């Protein structure tokens, strides 16, 4: 398991009735699950919900105490399928994953689950990774809720509202026999706030009760005639039940109704941004007291027709604050109002933006535009905030500045074992020419960015090799190269990629990056992790699994830092006469996690007086000519540039920062690419042995004697 501990966070899960919880949004959800009497939790890690998984991993004691079963699912599909436990039994269950990527994977199980329906509350917590900093395609979970008829909660982004949404989500699910999806935007997951806790609840009906008293109901299985029955049930029973329950329990909120003859309909998740915009426009204050009527959809699917009609009646216009596209809610509003023959004008994407994140600036400008059209007398032009004013033109430094600010995308960490794989590939391609390279999801996808510029596409987690499937023709001897991480491999790549390539007799190359963790999601364990994990089975071999599905040509590199070996293995894989699928397993532990593991150990050993050698690399500035070819082959954050200390030279020199962990790639690259003699490896010996010291004394005496001769010559030149 990753060497990070969440002991402090785990303690928060023990808080009882009336005590104040302070922490992150996603942790509040974790606590809310325990307060709701959940029986089982499963999920697949990924920003922004990794923390939920990590904390539960460390909270095993409390889970056991409460009789809660917790799983690291093999994939989001596995997680979603886990909710089947709530189909026949009154068991509350929750699963979590990153959306929409995880929801894509889970959708088969979700569709089946939603079709048959549930008895126990089934909650799907999705971390909506949309907008700035997102690493995935920009789509909406909303579409999944609609297509499978799963209710979608989008609570206001404060901890009490989020916690309440969890509790209400279970109740709503049970009242309507329908799974409920709780959507949390990335900032809401990471928001720090507080709420008053309740006691944790041990479920009144447990997994044990279910397993010892199994029941079945064939009408819940998706097979005709059940499946046709389910569709009618959805429309005739579950939909009306939801309309009623949501309305009766006031899940949606209305503020300042009657204040104006226009209003704003917003997703709960947009509430804070809207309130801030109103405050800035002097149409509200910091406490959410608004002069404009607000209809807050804490449930964004389904819309409650009666509520919509009630809010819109007597209003000339409403502005829909709906982030992402397509504009499902806006379209739905049009339909509801049209059927009710209400004349209220619906604005939304026309005044905000068709696409892109609804940032504070977009929201504020959109509301201003709306109020200008329908309540201009409310606005005091002199008081309007900077964000809606035209940019100050006085500053002529801004264009210059913009030309100087360069992008800083995420990249491989210092000492990352994945980087040298791409260095090796780059060197192999120097000899063999460029190849089609299929990328996958994981840290290794950073290869598409400078300095490597390797990788043509990515089709999803674990789908690296699958995405090169078409390139399988006898008309060329050239082979494609695909990448896949160990996480993606166990997630689905073993079958979707490896099995597929074997079955279809593909003559191409797959590199499985085996770094012992699902590193990009925070370093969680998987089957091939090398750490021993008391509650999970680890240390299984990827090569064995690959062999098991029939690959004959398998090479394992146990030290990816050996750039020349990586290069040579690529050359071999690309040129060998042997036909068929070829798999290279490139193993080295994720440096980030390795350092977390080793740093305290090394410190302890030094403190105990043991002999410890610390390695780090360096560049001699006086032999470096400033061409930076080493950086173009490495891209390590610790290998950077510095002003040239030489008066004559103008280009910056390469330099190695103190953050270097001595992974060795710099030296290997200097050798493999025959770069330059400027690199050196410094070995610093702590607690040297007597023999070390004696050798050093002897050497130093001779070396210093000779160095004094050099000094004498140089002293004639300069003083």
């Amino acid at each position, binding site marked *: 398991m990753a060497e990070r501990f969440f002991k402090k966070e785990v303690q928060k899960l023990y808080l009882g009735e009336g005590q104040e919880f*302070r922490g992150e949004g996603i942790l509040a959800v974790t606590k809310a699950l325990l307060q709701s009497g959940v029986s089982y939790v499963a999920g697949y890690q990924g*920003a922004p919900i990794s923390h939920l998984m990590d904390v539960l991993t460390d909270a095993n004691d409390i889970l056991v105490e409460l009789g809660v079963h917790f799983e690291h699912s093999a994939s989001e599909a596995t997680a979603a399928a886990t909710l089947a436990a709530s189909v026949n039994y009154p068991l509350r269950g929750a699963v979590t994953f990153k959306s929409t990527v995880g929801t894509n994977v889970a959708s088969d199980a979700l569709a089946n689950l939603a079709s048959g329906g549930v008895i126990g509350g089934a909650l799907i917590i999705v971390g909506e990774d949309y*907008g*700035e*900093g997102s690493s995935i395609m920009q789509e909406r979970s909303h579409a999944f809720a609609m297509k499978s008829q799963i209710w979608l909660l989008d609570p206001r982004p404060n901890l009490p509202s989020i916690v309440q949404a969890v509790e209400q989500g279970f109740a709503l699910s049970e009242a309507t026999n329908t799974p409920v999806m709780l959507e949390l935007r990335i900032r809401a997951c990471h928001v*720090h706030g507080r709420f008053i806790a309740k006691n944790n609840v041990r479920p009144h009906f447990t997994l044990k009760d279910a397993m010892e008293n199994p029941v079945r109901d064939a009408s819940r299985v998706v097979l005709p005639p059940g499946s046709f029955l389910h569709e009618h049930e959805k429309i005739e029973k579950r939909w009306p039940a939801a309309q009623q329950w949501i309305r009766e329990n006031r899940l949606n909120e209305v503020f300042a109704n009657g204040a104006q003859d226009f209003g704003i309909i917003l997703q709960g998740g947009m*509430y804070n*941004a809207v309130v801030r915009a109103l405050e800035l426009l002097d149409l509200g204050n*910091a406490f*959410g007291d608004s002069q404009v009527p607000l209809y807050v959809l804490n449930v964004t699917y389904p819309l409650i027709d009666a509520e919509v009609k009630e809010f819109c009646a007597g209003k000339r216009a409403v502005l829909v604050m709906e982030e992402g596209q397509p504009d499902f809610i806006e379209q739905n509003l049009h339909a509801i109002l049209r059927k009710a023959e209400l004349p209220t004008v619906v604005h939304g994407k026309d005044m905000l933006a068709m696409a892109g994140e609804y940032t504070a600036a977009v929201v504020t400008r959109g509301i201003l535009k709306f109020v200008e059209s329908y309540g*201009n007398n409310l606005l005091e*032009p002199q*008081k309007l*905030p*900077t*964000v809606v*004013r*035209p940019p100050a*033109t006085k500053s002529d430094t801004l264009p210059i*500045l*913009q030309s100087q*600010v*360069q992008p*800083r995308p995420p*990249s491989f*960490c210092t000492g990352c074992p994945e980087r040298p794989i791409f260095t090796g590939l780059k060197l192999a391609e120097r000899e063999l020419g460029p190849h089609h390279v299929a990328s996958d999801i994981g840290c290794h996808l950073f290869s598409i960015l400078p300095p490597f510029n390797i990788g043509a596409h990515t089709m999803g987690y674990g789908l690296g090799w699958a995405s090169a499937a078409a390139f399988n023709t006898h008309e060329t001897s050239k082979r494609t190269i695909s990448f896949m991480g160990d996480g993606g491999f166990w997630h689905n790549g073993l079958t979707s990629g490896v099995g597929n390539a074997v079955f279809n007799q593909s003559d191409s190359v797959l590199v499985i990056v085996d770094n012992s963790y699902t590193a990009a999601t925070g370093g969680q364990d998987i089957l091939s992790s090398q750490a021993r994990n008391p509650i999970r089975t680890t240390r299984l071999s990827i090569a064995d699994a690959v062999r098991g599905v029939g690959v004959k040509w398998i090479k394992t590199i146990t030290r990816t830092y050996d750039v020349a070996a990586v290069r040579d293995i690529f050359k071999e894989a690309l040129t060998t006469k042997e036909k068929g699928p070829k798999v290279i397993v490139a193993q080295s532990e994720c440096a980030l996690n390795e350092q977390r593991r080793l740093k305290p150990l090394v410190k302890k050993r030094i403190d105990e007086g043991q002999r410890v050698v610390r390695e780090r690399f*360096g560049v*001699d500035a006086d*032999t470096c000519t400033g*061409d*930076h*070819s080493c950086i173009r082959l490495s*891209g390590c954050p610790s290998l*950077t540039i510095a*002003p040239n200390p030489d*008066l*004559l030279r103008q*280009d910056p020199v390469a330099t190695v920062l103190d953050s270097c962990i001595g992974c060795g790639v710099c*030296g290997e690259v200097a*050798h*493999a*690419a025959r*770069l330059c*003699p400027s690199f050196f*490896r*410094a*070995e*610093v*010996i*702590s*607690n040297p042995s007597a023999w*070390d*010291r004696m050798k050093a004394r002897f050497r130093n005496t*001779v*070396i210093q004697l000779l160095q004094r001769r*050099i*000094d004498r010559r*140089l002293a*004639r*030149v300069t003083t």
Partner: protein
Amino acid sequence: MPISQLSQSAPSGTGAAAARSINIAILAMGGEGGGVLADWIVDLAENSGYLAQTTSVPGVAQRTGSTIYYVELFPEDAARAAGKQPVLALMPVPGEVDVVIASELMEAGRAITRGLVTPDRTTLIASTNRVYAMTEKIAMGDGRADADAFLQAGGDAARVFIHRDFAALAEQNRSVISATLFGALAAVETLPFRRQQFEAAIERGGISVSSSLKAFAAGFAAATSPEPVKSEPIVSAVPKAGPGLAALAARMTAGFPPASHAILLAGLARLADYQDIAYASTYLDRLEPIRSLAQQPGGHDAALLTETARYLALWMSYEDAIRVADLKTRRARFERVHADARVADDQLLLINEFLHPRVEEFADILPVALGSWLLKTGWAARLVNRLTGKGKILQTTSLWGFLQLYWLASLRRWRPKTLRFQREQQRISNWLEQVKDVAQVDYALALEVAECPRLVKGYGDTYLLGSRNFESLMRALPRLRQLDNPASRLKDLRHAALADDTGKKLEDALAKLNLPQGGAL
């Protein structure tokens, strides 16, 4: 009212009576402690009568990408008076940020381009250290962004602009930049908290408390001390001539314009160090004709002389194995590595060199006849390459390693007889002739020609590519002179040569001008 009719700046004192949040944006790179800083601020506020909310979008940006941490604070008594919880925002609104903290200078620039820094409201605290972006690092020449542009923009955009090297301060105190920046935040007094309250937050954090407090104090002191004088571009020390070089230095001082002295003296020292005093003397001899040119009408300033002198000195001191061995064995070098690796008194240091000479580098330092033979003779070249194998790691701090390099360096006196020396002297003469020739008619173009050797850098393939590019430009020169604006065209070609490491961009640029491509070495 249409937005376009608004004046540009918001009037001060809007909603004077209404309580509002204090908004703080922290721009940092992932894994750099921005989260720690945000947590301290939250803890500080929550223990000082304020409600606090923080959020961020770490995601994959935890790995070295730019990340924004956003904090809002709200007075608890105002909330109590209103009987309600405030609604705090999860992302900054341009124009509504009270404090922007940037852990690096370009990130400060990024905050300004995002509109987070405004003159009516924002205190900008920026660390002036540079963590270079990938695009800056991988440039073949100098791809660094203009730091002055960031400082200038910071001054223009912020209400208060505090810029110090908080990273270096943290380093000096063996702590992290979040601590020094936290100190600066206390010092600017934008937040309604006292210094002791800040320090208490660090203490409650409980991790590395004493070093964090020390760094905090250093950051506080730096931010309150007078603004540093605008940092001059780093000028490396001009060497002082030793006794052996005194005569040449005197000749130089007497005969060359003062503006060129620094570079010339550096050149003299370099070449005397590289070879001997006589070689340094050749250097001055070679520059005499350029100096005379500068004195002619049309020779406007010392730029041509200085730039020619710069590249002549670098070219004459080309890096061969002898030079590399010489530099690697020096005492000053050992001391530098010692300091960089932070070797404590009770620790030992070993230095391992990564060397991988190719047959060309062997031939370079052989006598002309032998070197040429080796390069021409397939089996001998293969043999040498086989012997060097996968490269060599040589421990300079070991006796045997040191002696090998020491011996190699001692070949210095034989250098003038080597293959490469002969070849380079010839090429140097050709280039100098071109500079002189062009300068008679087109000073600006001559200046560009003088700068062309900047392309020739590195070792191995990098060196070959640079040389080839250089030769391409020299071969294109006669035709270039017949076009209009040859100086700027040559400059563009030089930039094209530095635009990629395959030579493709230069080829394209030459083809576009219908100029000859490629060049023999």
